[in-house]
């Protein structure tokens, strides 16, 4: 390829990267908070699905993706409340409750989708979603402008949300208490803070953002719901948190990395005349991510009290 072609190729792939990374960014950022507070939530997949469905349903009936998103967040918070109540107040095993959330998320959304939308499949896909909006001037930059500045609101939001998240985590009293709770809850307790409150808050943030990540799929990236539309993204997000060393910007970077591998494999498949079996491309994102992870020089240790319920 001559340079020009390469540039446009890159630009296109990068744009797709950003779009594909967005659900991971939201979800993993949230999980960073709850794991930093010592709560491991493997139920992200389920929460994402619930968020995705709620956003879809509400948008479908109200015609407003904004309302849909708000509803999704609410549903996520509801999941968080349940999760926190069980794991924090009743100190139930976090893995158990997470696994349960996955089951409920899949079953409930599918069940409701059938009960509410059966027979309406056609209409069900016709509503406005967050559509791409052009940023004046910037969007007219050659290659990149056209692509990097013609995304939808939720995609643009990602760096801002991550910035905010990292500010809260590292620059506020709340963030300090979150980081302490995940490492050494007894200390937090003896400092007169309520470990349970901090964990509730962090879990709510986690599930809320996971729901946003799910909602993105149904009201921004596409405008439709399919059963199991998240197709494993919740689990990837879980891995992203670890590889991203439990830091907001780390999660952001790793999400983009995975998104890039995914965009690349789709693009390579699209290049006509390539005869390699498509499964090789499909496996690429997971394989490369795995390799990157294993090869990583400095891997951070997980929060000291991760997964351990606290009893004063």
């Amino acid at each position, binding site marked *: 390829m001559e340079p020009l072609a390469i540039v446009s190729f890159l630009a296109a792939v990068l744009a797709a990267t950003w779009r594909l990374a967005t659900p991971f960014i939201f979800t993993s950022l949230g999980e960073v908070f709850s794991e930093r507070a010592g709560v491991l939530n*493997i139920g992200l997949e*389920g929460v994402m699905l619930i968020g995705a469905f709620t956003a879809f349903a509400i948008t479908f009936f109200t015609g407003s993706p904004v309302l849909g998103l708000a509803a999704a967040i609410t549903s996520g918070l509801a999941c968080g409340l*349940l999760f926190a109540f*069980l*794991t924090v107040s*009743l*100190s*139930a*095993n976090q*893995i*158990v*409750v997470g*696994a*349960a*959330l*996955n*089951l*409920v*998320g*899949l*079953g*409930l959304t*599918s*069940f409701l989708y*059938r*009960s509410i939308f059966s027979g309406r499949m056609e209409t069900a896909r016709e509503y406005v979603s967050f559509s791409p909006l052009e940023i004046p001037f910037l969007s007219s930059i050659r290659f990149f402008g056209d692509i990097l500045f013609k995304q939808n609101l939720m995609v643009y939001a990602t760096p801002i949300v991550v910035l905010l998240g990292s500010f809260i985590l590292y620059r506020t009293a709340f963030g300090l208490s979150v980081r302490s709770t995940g490492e*050494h*809850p*007894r200390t937090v307790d003896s400092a007169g803070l309520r470990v349970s409150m901090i964990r509730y808050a962090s879990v709510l943030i986690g599930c809320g953002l996971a729901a946003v990540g799910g909602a993105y799929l149904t009201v921004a990236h596409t405008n439709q719901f399919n*059963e199991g539309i998240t197709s*494993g993204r919740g*689990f*990837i997000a*879980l*891995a992203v948190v*670890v*590889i991203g060393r439990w830091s907001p910007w780390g999660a952001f970077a790793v999400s983009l990395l995975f998104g890039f591998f995914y965009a690349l494999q789709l693009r390579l498949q699209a290049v006509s005349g390539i005869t390699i*079996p498509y*499964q*090789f491309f*499909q*496996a690429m994102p*997971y*394989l490369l*991510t*795995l390799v990157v*992870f*294993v090869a990583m020089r400095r*891997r951070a240790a*997980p929060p*000291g*009290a991760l997964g*351990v*319920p*606290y*009893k004063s």
Partner: protein
Amino acid sequence: METVEPEIAQKPPSRRSDLKKISFSPRYLFTLGRKMAPPVAALAAALLVGAILLYAAGYSPWYAYGVMWEGAFGSRNNLAETLLKATPLILIGSGLAVAFRSGIWNIGAEGQLYAGAVAATLAGIFFTGLPAMILVPLVLLAGMLSGAIWGGLAGFLKVRFGASEIVTTIMLNFIAIIATSYLVTGPMIEEVGKFPQTAQIADAARLPRILFPTRLHIGFLLAMGVALASYLLLFKSSRGYALRTVGISPDAARYAGINVGAGLMISMAISGGAAGLAGATEVAGLTFRLYQEISPGYGFDGIAVALLANNNPIGVIFTGILFGALRSGSEVMQMNAQVPSVLVSVIQGVVLLSAAALGVFRITVAESRKE
């Protein structure tokens, strides 16, 4: 503890002392009952939630559940189908119980099941000619080994590079499933028809059936055996003592002269092997050939099954059958009451949730003080 059931008393004395601990003496049944009480309550709660959903969606809960019960236990055949679904769950669940007790979070049973299914199929296709006496064990062994290797890989990455098994097993799941899809659409695709499926395995490779005319095969007995073995391993053997020590406190384990790395590898291999065995029994017992989606998520249900049993392999037998019954019952429920079978996932999930709420999974002081 002295009341020993006759048929156990007949066992050779040497093994008796081991077996007695899990013999169904009244006292054991009593403690068992105490153990089972909360899960039963959890199930009740879950069914209630399900009923509410059903009612809200305009179905008759009574009728639906009636049909579901029928479908799970109503006839010899339905019972067999329930046990058939329980088989892979019990296999996977017992393996995961070992892994979880050793403090390693193997999320990769699904991928390990696929690895096992692939190897079993290969064995079943290539080694025709061999008599069943040899071929059946060979096929199962192949599945088990390849599952163990796929799981052991994650164990190796953890021990050698300190790579969190949660990450590696998740990735290895995706890779195994995609690889299978490649094999059945490419190199291993059947000659005739050219559908994305392998040729059928040799007749001699198929698991004998044990309950005519149903499809129930010895895989089920195998699963019970594996559960029992895992139980003895974990709680009655010195190896199990070592694994549990590793799971609770690696430092104490090293101090005790236990090889922690080996422990992790072993438990990953064991749980992987069990999952691989599940893949093998699916192929050799039911499908007789490999497809793209050989498992409807047994690997993930297996996690729930193990946890619901508080990582006790004996408990896994019960929780496995429970989940199996829910699944097979729900299919019939859909056929005859037209209730979407997805409802079952909700019920299973709520079973877990309420079990958690009822504190089935007790938290020891140690955990709560561990810092």
